[in-house]
């Protein structure tokens, strides 16, 4: 599974990591796996303001992601 990051998350984790998953996994489980693997980003990954996006749609933490899908994590956005 490809996991892509933006903003401050990309600043500390890079723009993309690949996570090996044997089966579908919830967004919450993926957050926990990533937080364990990257403790420096654990707080941000657990924040409710960091949204998960699959197929260009923001999804809730109980959304199941298939191993062949890509997840994007969005820190809070800010224009203007």
């Amino acid at each position, binding site marked *: 599974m490809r996991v892509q990051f*933006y*903003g*401050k998350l*990309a*600043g500390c984790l890079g723009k993309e990591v690949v996570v090996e998953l044997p089966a579908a996994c919830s967004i919450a489980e993926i957050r926990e796996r990533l937080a364990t693997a990257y403790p420096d980003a654990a707080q941000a990954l657990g924040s409710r*303001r960091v949204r998960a*996006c699959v197929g*260009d749609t923001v999804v809730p933490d109980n959304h199941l992601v298939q191993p062949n899908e890509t997840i*994007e994590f*969005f*820190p*809070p*956005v*800010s*224009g*203007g």
Partner: protein
Amino acid sequence: MSVIARLEFETLNPAAELEQLLGAAQSDGAIVSFVGLARPHTSAGEIVKRIVLEHHPRLTLKSLQDIADEGAGRFGTTHIRVVHRCGELAPGEPIVFAGAAAVHRRAAFQAADYLMDRLKTEAVFWKREDGPADSKWIEPTEDDYADRGRWE
């Protein structure tokens, strides 16, 4: 009626955007426009050497279009124009142009205010201030979210 939302990769020229809006609004009575500039200092007073606006390859423009469309449908405006920069900006460079035309001024003022409150909190950008020594990612403040909440 027109609704224009554009992501600008190069220099944003507010005068040219206003000229376009003026041209479109010849039958109207009012135009209100806002131009946001890259600030030379952080909120803590530190020097900013450049601002980086990271964008999403698909969702950033969509967010601009959604905000412009919803602004157009809400206040009875005749024309809406939203242009937002991405990439690297030097202090003083325009970041955003938000303009609204209407038959009467109140609708134009409200629409421009609404557009900016939503752009500050919902436009899909990630903003970083680079200083001489370090960099800092900027997120909306509680005041920004409260301003956005005025329209709910």
